């Protein structure tokens, strides 16, 4: 039993944090927002230089073969800096699919090395998300159809852009026709793979939401320490302190839940679905509270476009409902907790070795 990250994992996290601190200042994000694509080729190149596009790609395909556990720390940082990029979809989710699909090796050879090098963007269309992120710039789209996986190019699909409150998101309705030619994985292994995508998507967003929680909290603290009212910093008023302290409590307790979920996914624990959903619920709750309280302590600045806070707040609101909104995840957790065969109580938190049936959910 060791519930800590090792020094190498933490060093990698620190390196990514320093890199993003320099490369992803709010002004830069605003600039990227304003572009049509909402994406920066330059930023993507730098992310690749940091090894992020290669993180999950097996070494045989030019990657560095890291696990879900390494991603979780990266995703917290990506959230903190609100990185507008399809990195998660391409380098985490699509790579997971490609790694695990029983498709022919040529297909993997075609895509995995390009992804690792940062030369390909892949969009992933999971049925739980009504729209597909980053479809317009994608070199490849991996789409769900009756639990099968289909692979299409941009030319094979019709896209309709849908603006999100989070200007860093680029969402598209994707219309397309499934065929034998587009199918790269049948429903039988596909079903499990799409569950895997869901759990990893929700996990990635949980970690990003936790990062966003901390960013909004930090912005709130900074504002409260500097802004004066009634002759004192607003941060010296107890009401303001307690607003921010409440956020810190939520963040503190969401984190180990997210880390357990990542471990459960990496190690294919039978309860991973429950643990992931708990992580998403608690991260979403922390992020919503952080948004509300940070807006509140910002005063009127909190609902302006000028204050950086808005960028993180909007992203938190948007990500909270992607890869399963709170209703979906609450149902998954409740299904386990309230079931007659529920294994609750002391001693069950790490019962990874015990087989329990995972409740299936119908998509589509």
């Amino acid at each position, binding site marked *: 039993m060791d519930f800590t990250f090792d020094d190498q994992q933490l060093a990698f996290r620190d390196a990514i944090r320093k890199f993003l601190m320099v490369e992803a200042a709010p002004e830069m994000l605003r600039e990227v927002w304003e572009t049509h694509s909402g994406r920066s080729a330059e930023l993507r190149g730098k992310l690749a230089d940091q090894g992020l596009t290669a993180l999950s790609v097996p070494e045989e395909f030019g990657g560095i073969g890291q696990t879900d556990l390494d991603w979780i720390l990266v995703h917290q940082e990506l959230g903190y800096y609100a990185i507008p990029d399809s990195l998660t979809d391409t380098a985490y989710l699509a790579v997971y699919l490609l790694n695990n699909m029983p498709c022919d090796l040529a297909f993997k050879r075609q895509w995995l090395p390009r992804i690792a090098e940062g030369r390909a963007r892949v969009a992933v269309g999971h049925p739980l998300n009504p729209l597909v992120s980053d479809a317009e710039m994608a070199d490849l789209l991996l789409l769900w159809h009756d639990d099968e996986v289909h692979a299409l190019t941009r030319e094979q699909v019709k896209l309709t852009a*849908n603006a999100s409150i989070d200007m860093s998101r680029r969402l598209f309705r994707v219309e397309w026709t499934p065929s034998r030619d587009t199918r790269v994985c049948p429903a039988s292994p596909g079903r499990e793979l799409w569950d895997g995508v869901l759990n990893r998507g929700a996990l990635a967003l949980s970690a990003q939401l936790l990062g966003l929680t901390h960013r909004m909290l930090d912005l709130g603290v900074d504002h409260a320490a500097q802004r004066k009212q009634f002759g004192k910093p607003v941060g010296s008023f107890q009401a303001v302190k307690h607003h921010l302290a409440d956020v810190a409590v939520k963040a503190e307790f969401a984190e180990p839940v997210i880390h357990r979920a990542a471990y459960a996914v990496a190690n294919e624990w039978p309860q991973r679905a429950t643990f992931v959903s708990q992580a998403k619920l608690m991260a979403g709750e922390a992020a919503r509270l952080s948004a*509300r309280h940070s807006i509140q302590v910002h005063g009127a600045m909190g609902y302006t476009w000028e204050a950086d806070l808005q960028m993180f707040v909007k992203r938190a609101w948007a990500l909270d409902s992607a890869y399963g909104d709170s209703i979906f995840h609450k149902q998954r957790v409740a299904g386990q907790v309230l079931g007659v065969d529920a294994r609750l109580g002391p001693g069950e938190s790490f019962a990874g070795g015990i087989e329990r049936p995972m409740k299936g959910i119908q998509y589509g």
Partner: protein
Amino acid sequence: MRLEYTDKQNRFRAEVREWLREHVPREPLKSFDTEEGFAQHRAWERTLSTAGYSAVTWPKDMGGRGTDLVEWLIFEEEYWSAGAPLRVNQNGIFLLAPTLMEYGTEIQKRMILPRMATGEDVWAQAWSEPGAGSDMAAIRSKAVRDGDHYVITGQKTWSTRAVFADWAFGLFRTEEGSQRHHGLTFILFPLNLPGITRRPIRQLNGLPGFAEIFMDDVRVPVAYRLGEEGAGWNIAMATAGFERGLMLRSPARFQQTARLLAELLRRHPDRAAADPSLCDAVTQAWMGAEAYTLATYRTACRLAKGGHIGAEASTNKIFWSELDLQMHETAMRILGARGELMPEAPDAAGTGQWLDGFLFAQAGPIYAGTNEIQRNIIAERMLGLPR
């Protein structure tokens, strides 16, 4: 106690309902935070005024209908039920006008109110300053007397509607070296005077809902002063009482939102089935809107009998702002993954106004005195706790 409407009240309701059915624009107006939308809303104010509806409680000779507060509530109920446009001149009609009625000279009233009623003059408030948000007594903008003019210098901010409005009202320090609440004077000023510069401030939704106003040696006639020189703080507090109190957010607004929320849930039975706590949240929304309505009726009736609004104005502010958040958060939960879509997104399927309302609701606990300030007021003035 008698909680049935009188025949006269019922007739008034029927008249308003009929008129609105005929006159409310079929197509929703553009946002009044755009130039085009502002003009549309100004025109609507003019239309309203033709029936004396832009300010029903005002005397007829000022452009109103001379109704009491209960009839105002009835008017508002019909107005919100009819889905009529938001009121671009709200700051003038509901915040400034009650103060003007009490402290203004006869000439000021006649000069200002009828033009406000018709929308010829749209008013902005100019309370806050960069260093004086919730702490209004920290105002530093100066007005120096020079013959029959004040020469105004300084900066106002968070000035709602100021981007396109014609006039503004605010407090200025007229006594050099005065501190806090002392030496402040309430001054009305046209926003097109030489020396005034406005810088729009964009809100969460990207539109300029308020502005900064920079004033550089702006000459304002003394005739535009409201009340005595140096009496500004007390006059402004009367306005703030109204703002937080009765008229800033009419209960019908929240009742209408609660109704639309219940309809939204009915249109999404799958969501209610997946999460029955949504039913609780909608029930809670209805209860909150009702409670706010009943409290307002009670206050209106008490005022009619000679009562005054006290610290309970602060309870109002807290109650409706939290209710508004709760209702819009519930709507966002019902909408789930589609909730993030902007109103113009093709797949938003006509639910985009909930996102707009959700964004606007974020401001509720902050403007017109943050809810933290309101809680202080309740604790100190209603409950008598030590400062």
